[in-house]
């Protein structure tokens, strides 16, 4: 039971009764007064009961779960997910037969889903949440691939003394490349171009 309407002699009584029926504390619910109620003339004629609607507040976890569930179902892909919280971030981790499809080419699909779900969840909730999606360790594998790529290409720049332009990447992916080569004595990195086609360029230090 997520919400309930109660009639009683006063608003206060109605709320109390609703909280008992819902098994919730006052800070866990939103209260809407539908009818103020009135004593009426001489307490006899025109007595009206107070009526309230008491609704259990949705937690960020509830909203994230519902939103992801709806979209995954509408996409018709066969994956399961779990939600966990670490500090300021909510993690949504997927597994199942359609995980490769969910990730997409170079993470294109999971990044799009993460972006859209972040937008929807933040619209539905009153507080700001930030969620990160992953599937069967994809993010960590991608990070390792990018680090290796960065080191290999830095060697090429050092050897050929020519710039290397990488393919377009997300800000998070570009950051991995920048961080990997930050301390490199031979090369430096910058990002060039406009989103979503922004690319890292690796150049020789002079």
């Amino acid at each position, binding site marked *: 039971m997520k919400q309930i309407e109660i009639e009683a002699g006063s608003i206060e009584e109605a709320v109390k009764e609703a909280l008992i029926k819902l098994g919730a504390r006052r800070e866990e619910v939103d209260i809407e007064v539908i009818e103020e109620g009135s004593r009426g003339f001489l307490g006899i004629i025109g007595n009206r009961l107070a009526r309230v609607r008491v609704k259990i507040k949705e937690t960020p976890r509830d909203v994230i779960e519902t939103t992801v569930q709806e*979209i995954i179902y*509408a996409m018709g892909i066969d994956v399961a997910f779990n939600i966990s919280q670490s500090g300021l971030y909510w993690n949504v981790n997927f597994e199942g037969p*359609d995980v490769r499809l*969910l990730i997409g080419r170079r993470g294109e699909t999971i990044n799009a889903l993460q*972006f*859209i779900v972040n937008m929807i969840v933040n619209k539905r909730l009153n507080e700001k949440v930030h969620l990160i999606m992953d599937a069967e360790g994809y993010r960590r594998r991608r990070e390792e691939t990018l680090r290796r790529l960065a080191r290999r290409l830095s060697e090429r720049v050092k050897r050929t003394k020519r710039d290397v332009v990488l393919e377009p990447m997300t800000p998070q992916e570009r950051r991995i490349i920048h961080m990997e080569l930050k301390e490199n004595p031979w090369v430096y990195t910058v990002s060039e171009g406009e*989103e979503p086609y922004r690319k890292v360029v690796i150049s020789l230090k002079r």
Partner: protein
Amino acid sequence: MKELIELIAKSLVDKPEDVEVAEFQDEKGVVVELKVAPEDMGKVIGKQGKIARAIRTLAKAKAAKTGTKVLVEILS
């Protein structure tokens, strides 16, 4: 495909009652036409088309599952 686009669009805009989605088949695959209230256009397109691009990416993934192609048009 219509349901997916409708769900995402209605969840993003301020006037979900004004969201209209049509779906039809052409020789290349499925075409989905999305219409929203004029003041909600930014909510489905986004800065530099970022939201529109994400919606299309999700539609493409759904189409890939069934081996078809999809084109999502946002009409003004």
